């Protein structure tokens, strides 16, 4: 038997929104119908928005964007559009409704949430950009040591008596290149390895790291200032890599300081790793996170540590920023989920 339930009940069951709107004499857009799951969630059902125009319903920039789309729809535009409200994305499928004279008197349509789709798309775009930048860096940066090898080989070909002299240099360069490839593989693993998120004792990890660095060179004097009771959530292996890189950099770049000091503390809900080392140029704060970007050529390094750190923090849904100036130390702040 065919069930003759009213259309309203059917629409109510839909997660989406079914709408119908028109323009009144004041030129503003009003709704005569706005029903479905999303309408209820946002308290925008027909009942709730009766007598309110588009401008009254949406504030600020959102109003402007939505109004432009609806006005276009009243001109006959039927292309779907997406708008954002509080980090969620909604796709509108408008259709004009014409009277006997062909004039558009109403716009009807439905709205679906497409947040997951938009987020997946953004993620894909980011991954694609990363990949592109990565390929670019790889081709460029692996060619550097290769150029050195090629130059030295050509020098020996021309004057074989130099062989003895360049052998060590060749070996060093090959070693450097091998390190670079190793770092690149580690970098790519941090993107792909599955994450195992759990509670973390950040204080403990930082202390362990400090100990490892101290044991590396017992002759070095450095003050590790690690705050007590720093807790967060994250993948323990990965967060360890973050601290290893940040604290390792701090260790490396304070090597010339008489009173070298490295701290790990909480600041503004973020974890801060700072030092009183050589710092970096102010305008490098963003650049230093790009793979193979090296600001301190006179120090050993392959330029991929901070790129790895950034990637890990972002995989955890956090953010990282750097602050520094030449000779005045560096500070890195990153966010993790709270414990």
């Amino acid at each position, binding site marked *: 038997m065919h069930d003759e339930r009213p259309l309203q009940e059917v629409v109510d069951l839909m997660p989406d929104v079914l709408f119908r709107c028109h323009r009144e004499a004041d030129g503003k857009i009003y709704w005569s119908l706005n029903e479905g799951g999303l309408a209820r969630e946002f308290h925008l059902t027909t009942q709730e928005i009766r007598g309110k125009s588009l401008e009254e319903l949406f504030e600020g920039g959102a109003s402007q964007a939505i109004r432009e789309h609806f006005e276009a729809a009243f001109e006959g535009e039927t292309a779907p559009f997406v708008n954002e409200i509080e980090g969620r994305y909604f796709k509108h499928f408008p259709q004009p409704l014409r009277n006997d004279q062909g004039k558009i008197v109403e716009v009807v349509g439905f709205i679906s949430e497409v947040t997951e789709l938009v987020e997946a798309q953004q993620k894909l775009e980011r991954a694609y950009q990363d990949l592109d930048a990565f390929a*670019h860096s790889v*081709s*460029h*940066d692996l*060619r*550097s*040591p*290769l*150029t*050195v*090898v*090629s*130059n*030295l080989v*050509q*020098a020996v070909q*021309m*004057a074989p008596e130099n062989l003895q002299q360049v052998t060590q240099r060749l070996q060093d*360069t090959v070693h450097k290149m091998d390190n670079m490839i190793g770092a690149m593989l580690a970098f790519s693993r941090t993107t792909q390895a599955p994450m195992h998120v759990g509670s973390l004792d950040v204080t403990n990890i930082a202390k362990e790291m400090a100990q490892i660095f101290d044991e590396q060179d017992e002759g070095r004097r450095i003050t590790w200032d690690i705050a007590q009771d720093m807790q967060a959530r994250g993948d323990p292996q990965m967060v360890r890599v973050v601290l290893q890189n940040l604290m390792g950099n701090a260790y490396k770049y304070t090597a010339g300081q008489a009173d070298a000091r490295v701290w790990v503390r909480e600041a503004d809900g973020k974890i801060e790793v700072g030092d009183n080392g050589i710092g970096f140029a102010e305008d490098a704060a963003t650049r230093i996170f790009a793979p193979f970007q090296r600001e301190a*050529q006179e120090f050993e390094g392959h330029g991929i540590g901070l790129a790895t750190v950034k990637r890990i923090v972002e995989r955890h849904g956090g953010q990282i920023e750097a602050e520094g100036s030449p000779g005045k130390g560096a500070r890195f702040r990153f966010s993790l989920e709270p414990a």
Partner: protein
Amino acid sequence: MKILVVDDEEDIRTTTRLLLEMHGHKVVTSGSWQEARDSAVGVDVVLQDVRMPGLDLESQITALQAVAGRVILFTGEQMTDLDAAATGADAFVQKPFHMDELTAALR
């Protein structure tokens, strides 16, 4: 020929210098664009890495051409004749390079 090698990697500067000197050229090197601007005065050819921080590449090339003979791009990136021409450079040599190619570009 007097050649200025501009590259931010020391190993590349020293080994390229070695090779060029073995081929009878007089060589100066710069590790930064700012330094290169001064060193370029009066040299016959500037061999310049494409990724030197500072001004954009086109402006760097124009400024160098104003004080030196020719500017040859020294690049680790994929580049075509068209790409190189678009920057205003007189020629380009891809890293790693063979001395024969560089010699050809120097002529």
